[in-house]
């Protein structure tokens, strides 16, 4: 009987361990999937845009968490509503440049400890011949509540585990740099005060391919 009790206890322990591993794995895989989808979409947006029509938030968007300072930047890039439409491109034989008619805005909200990362498609009033300047309305349209932003055609939450989203637009070499840090919190481990968490920190560098005039 005592042997059976020990075996049942071991079995219960194994079951407990299995469910904990399952929860931990869920947290990790969900964060890694978020990171992959962010990279893929951000890379696609950055590769399609024009470096001269990109801008970031002019004023710092810093938050402090546990004594550490993080950035929650915003990055705007020009894009097209329809890349397949012949009318989306200039008839100028030399450039055939895209006549950008939409902005895509990536921004992290300033909640602490973790903020959210949004990707928004913004349609400001159209300009004949396409936009020739970066998104002027970026600063007032990066609210923590994305529904308050103006002219938004589509909004997609990319992550709710953002600690740091630092962006840079480098006109000198025509690149966009992004540093992203995600931190996902899991559940408390049984019998301890330790919470399962997953941290991922990466840096990206992209070169917009539709830059005209050339650098």
């Amino acid at each position, binding site marked *: 009987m005592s042997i059976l009790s020990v075996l049942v206890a*071991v079995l219960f322990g194994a079951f407990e361990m299995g469910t904990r591993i399952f929860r931990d794995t869920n947290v990790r895989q969900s964060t890694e999937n978020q990171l992959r989808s962010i990279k893929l979409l951000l890379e696609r947006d950055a590769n399609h845009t024009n470096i001269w029509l990109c801008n970031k938030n002019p004023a710092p968007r810093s938050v402090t968490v546990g004594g550490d300072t993080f950035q929650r930047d915003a990055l705007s890039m020009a894009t097209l509503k329809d890349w397949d439409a012949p009318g989306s491109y200039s008839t100028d034989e030399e450039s055939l440049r895209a006549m950008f008619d939409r902005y895509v805005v990536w921004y992290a909200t300033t909640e602490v400890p973790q903020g959210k990362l949004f990707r928004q498609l913004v349609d400001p009033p159209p300009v004949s011949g396409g936009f020739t300047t970066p998104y002027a309305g970026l600063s007032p349209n990066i609210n923590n509540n994305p529904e308050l932003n103006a002219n938004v055609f589509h909004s997609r939450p990319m992550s709710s585990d953002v600690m740091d989203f630092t962006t840079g637009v480098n006109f000198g070499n025509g690149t966009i740099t992004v540093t992203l840090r995600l931190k996902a919190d899991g559940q408390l481990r049984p019998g301890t005060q330790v919470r399962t968490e997953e941290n991922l920190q990466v840096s990206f560098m992209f070169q917009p391919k539709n830059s005209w005039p050339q650098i």
Partner: protein
Amino acid sequence: MAEVILCLSLIAIATLGLIAALTRLMVAQSSSSHQTVARIIADSVMQRAVLQARPVKGASPPTLDNFDFGTVQTEEVRVGQNAELVTFFYLVDVERVVQPVAFNPDPVNNPWPQMGQMWQFKVTVWWNNENSHEGAIERGTETIEATTLSYIEN
């Protein structure tokens, strides 16, 4: 009595097997986030190398500069439980790729546009191991390799 002992023994063996399987799964998961970050570092370093590399004028054999090729470099990022600061080591190697004649069948009468020199870039990223980049026992591979071909403007 013998049946009970046999039954208990089988349950014990099954339980130990289950624990062993779960332990291995847990260890494998802990290296998974490192691999994800390493792949993105490799991708990012590759992009940077392709963007920055420039041919050395008049060099024979052709060489690239403006990037630290062949030198082990590091990047420290926070990964995994407790946001541990992990050092990732990376090495970028380049090798000139000579285009086959078939790429430009009639270079005299019908030359193709000059696209620059074709180079193969190979990025190796490893972690948890400073002196060498070999896989560690029970922790899966700790080395990531990425390769691409790219034209570098003359």
